[in-house]
C-alpha cells in the first residue's frame, strides 16, 4: 500500500495510537566537561590553526559580550544581546562551513559572524549606529550584516529568515553553486508559522539548507515546556522528511562534526538538514530583560558548569595546542582592544540626513525627495533641536 506521496506504508488491523514521544532522538556528545573525549567518541579532524581560530572566536565573543553589556548599562549603547553559553554552537557550526556559504541568523549568532571575519571595528560601528556602520545606523544594535562575508543582515521579526533561507539555497542550487545556506533560529522562533513553511518548502523543493536550531531552554521568560510538547525541535525534521541530528551545543567538537556532515549531505543530495543544538541561555534574553523574575539561580549554576569555552580550553591545553599564560595575556589584550575600539566608535559621527531616504528604493522616489527637502528646511529653522544633523546640512 502507498500513501498519496507514493511512499510505501505498512498497515495494521487493530486501532492503535502512535505515541507523541515514540521518536526519541539522541544527543551527540564528543567532548566531556574535563576536556577529554567520551569513551567511544572520535574527535573530528581539526588542524591546530582551525582549532585555535575557533577558540579565539569564542573568547572574543565572550569578552565582547561582557564589555558591551557593560556599555549598555552605562547608557553608551541603547541595547545589547549576549551569546553566553552558546558560543560553541555558533562558532563550531560556522567553522564547518565554506566561506562562501550564506549565513542567515536570528540575532544570537555573533560567534558565526566573528568566525567569518567581521572586524572589531565593524561590530562597534553597528553597535554605535555611526556613519561607518554598514547598515547606515538604521537598525537596533546587534542587527549585523555584511554582503562581503555572506552574512545576511539580521531583522527582528522571528523566524522570517527560515523560508528565506530555503529560497536562497534553492537559488544557489539553480545557479549550480557548490554552496549551502545555514539558517539559525531559537526554539521559540520554531513555533512561528514561518518555521513550518520554510522547512516544508526546503524539503519539497530539495534546497541545500542547514536549519540550525539553538534550543537554549528559554524564549525570553517562556521555558521550553511552555513552547512545545514533543521531543524538542529535532523530531519535527523527521516529520518533514528531513535528515536530522541533535547535538550538545556546549560541545564544540560535536557541533563541528555534525555541521560538517550535514553540509556534505546537503550538497551531495540537494536536501535540507535539521540540526538541533541543546545548550542553555546563561545570560539574560537581552539588556532589557532580568531572568531572576522567571528562573532560579540554582538552575543557572547547574548550567554554568556546562561551559562551552572552558571545555574546549581544557581540550586544547591537554593537546598542547594552547599555552595557559599566553592565553590569559591574549584575553587581557583583547579587553584593552575592545575598550579602545569602543572609544573610537562612539566618537564617529552619525549617518548624514540623506540616509533617511536612501535605500528605501534603489533610487529615491519623488515624494521622498520632497519630504527630505521639507525636513531640511525645518531643521534649518530649529537647528538646536536636531544637533546630530543641523550642523551638516
Amino acid at each position, binding site marked *: 500500500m502507498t500513501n498519496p506521496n507514493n511512499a510505501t506504508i505498512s498497515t495494521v488491523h487493530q486501532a492503535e495510537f502512535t505515541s507523541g514521544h515514540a521518536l526519541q532522538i539522541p544527543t551527540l556528545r564528543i567532548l566531556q566537561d574535563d576536556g577529554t573525549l567520551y569513551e567511544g567518541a572520535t574527535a573530528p579532524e581539526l588542524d591546530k590553526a582551525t582549532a585555535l581560530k575557533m577558540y579565539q572566536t569564542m573568547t572574543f565573543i565572550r569578552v565582547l559580550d561582557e564589555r558591551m553589556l557593560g556599555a549598555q548599562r552605562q547608557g553608551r549603547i541603547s541595547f545589547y544581546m549576549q551569546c553566553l553559553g552558546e558560543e560553541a554552537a555558533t562558532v563550531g557550526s560556522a567553522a564547518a562551513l565554506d566561506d562562501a556559504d550564506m549565513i542567515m541568523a536570528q540575532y544570537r549568532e555573533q560567534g558565526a559572524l566573528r568566525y567569518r571575519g567581521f572586524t572589531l571595528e565593524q561590530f562597534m560601528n553597528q553597535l554605535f549606529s555611526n556613519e561607518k556602520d554598514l*547598515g547606515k545606523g538604521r537598525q537596533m544594535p546587534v542587527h549585523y550584516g555584511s554582503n562581503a562575508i555572506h552574512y*545576511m543582515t539580521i531583522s527582528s521579526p522571528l523566524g*522570517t529568515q527560515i*523560508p528565506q533561507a*530555503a*529560497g536562497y539555497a534553492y*537559488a544557489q542550487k539553480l545557479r549550480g553553486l557548490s554552496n549551502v545556506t545555514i539558517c539559525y533560529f531559537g526554539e521559540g522562533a520554531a513555533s512561528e508559522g514561518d518555521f*513550518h*513553511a520554510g522547512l516544508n518548502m526546503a524539503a519539497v523543493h530539495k534546497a541545500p539548507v542547514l536549519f540550525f536550531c539553538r534550543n537554549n531552554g528559554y524564549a525570553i521568560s517562556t521555558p521550553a515546556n511552555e513552547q512545545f510538547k514533543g521531543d524538542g525541535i529535532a523530531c519535527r525534521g523527521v516529520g518533514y522528511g528531513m535528515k536530522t541530528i541533535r547535538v550538545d551545543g556546549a560541545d564544540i567538537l560535536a557541533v563541528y562534526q555534525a555541521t560538517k556532515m550535514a553540509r556534505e549531505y546537503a550538497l551531495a543530495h540537494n536536501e535540507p538538514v535539521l540540526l538541533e543544538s541543546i545548550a542553555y541561555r546563561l545570560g539574560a534574553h537581552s539588556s532589557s530583560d532580568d531572568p531572576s523574575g522567571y528562573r532560579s539561580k540554582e538552575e543557572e549554576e547547574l548550567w554554568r558548569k556546562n561551559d562551552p569555552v572552558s571545555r574546549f580550553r581544557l581540550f586544547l591545553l591537554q593537546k598542547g595546542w594552547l599555552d595557559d599564560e599566553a592565553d590569559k595575556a591574549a584575553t587581557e589584550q583583547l579587553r584593552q582592544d575592545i575598550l579602545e575600539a569602543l572609544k573610537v566608535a562612539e566618537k564617529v559621527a552619525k549617518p548624514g540626513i540623506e540616509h533617511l531616504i536612501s*535605500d528605501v528604493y534603489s533610487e529615491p522616489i519623488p515624494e521622498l525627495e520632497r519630504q527630505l527637502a521639507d525636513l531640511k528646511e525645518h531643521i534649518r529653522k530649529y537647528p538646536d533641536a536636531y544637533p546630530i544633523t543641523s550642523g551638516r546640512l
Partner: protein
Amino acid sequence: MAKMNMLQAINNALDLAMAKDDGVVCFGEDVGHFGGVFRATSKLQEKYGKARCFNTPLTEQGIAGFANGMAAQGMKPVAEIQFADYIFPAFDQIVNETAKFRYRSGNEFNVGGLVFRTPYGGGIAGGHYHSQSPEAYFAHTPGLKIVVPRNPHQAKGLLLASINCPDPVIFFEPKKLYRASVGEVPEEYYELPIGQAEVMKTGTQVTVLAWGAQMEIVEKAVEMAEAIGISCELIDLRSILPWDVDTVAESVKKTGRLVINHEAPLTGGFAGEIAATIQQRCFLHLESPILRVCGLDTPYPLALEKEYVADHLKTFEAIKASVNF
C-alpha cells in the same frame, strides 16, 4: 501585434521574461504543469523546466519568504498568490521583510528582483475571499511598488517593467478582465513605465481617476457624462506606489474638480490619500469637493454585489454632483 486577452498577455510577458533572463523563476500554488488556476503560467513548465516553473506547498508566507530568499540571492522570482484575498498570511514577509530589505541592510542586500503577482477585485460573484482589493494595505508600506494594469497591453508592458524593476513590486491583476478584456498587444518585448499615470482622454470640467478593472466602469460613466455635455479628463493611475502626483495635480489644476473611483472600501482606501494630497496641492484651483466613489465599508458581499460595487451609475452621479456643486 496580436489579439490577446489579459491572461494571454500576462502569460506572454512571463514567457518573454523567462526566455530573456535565466534568473526569472515562476512559482506558487498550482502554477506548475497545471499552469495556474487561471492559466497565467500555462506551458511555462513545459518550456523552461520544473526547476524554473513549479508548484509550491500551500503556504503563502512560505511562498513570500522563499521569494525573498531567491531575490536576495540575485534571482528574479515571480511569485503568484492565488487570490489577493490570500496575501494576508504573507503580510509579515512582504511588509517587514520584502519592503525593508534594502533599507535595513544599508543596501548590503536587496530583493529588488522580486514580483508578487496576484489576481484581485470583484465582479465575479467571489464573495468575501475571492473579490478583495487590498492595495491600500500595501500602499502604507515604504519600499514596495504597487502596479495595477487595466487591459492586456498594459498588463504585458507593466509586468515586464515590474520584473525588470530594481525594487520589489506587487502586481495586482484584475481577474474580472482576465478573459473579458481583449486587445491588440505587440508580440515583442516592451515595457511601460512604473510610477506614471496615463491620461486616457483629455477634458476640461472634471478629472475622473481610477485604476485596474474600474477603468472600464469609469469610462462608461464618462461616456454618459460627455453625452449630457460634461467634458471629462480620464486618468488611469496604473501605479499606486509610487503614485503620479504631478499628472493628477496638473489635471485638477486645469479642471478644478476630481472624482476618484475604487473597488475597495472607502475608509482607509487609497482615494483618501489622493484626495488629501490633491486638496493640499490644488486648494486654490478646486471648485468643488473631491468626491470618492468606492466600495462600502463592509466585507465584500455575495448576493448584493451589484449594490455594493462602485459602478458606472454611481460614478456618473458623482461626476454630475461635482460639476453642479
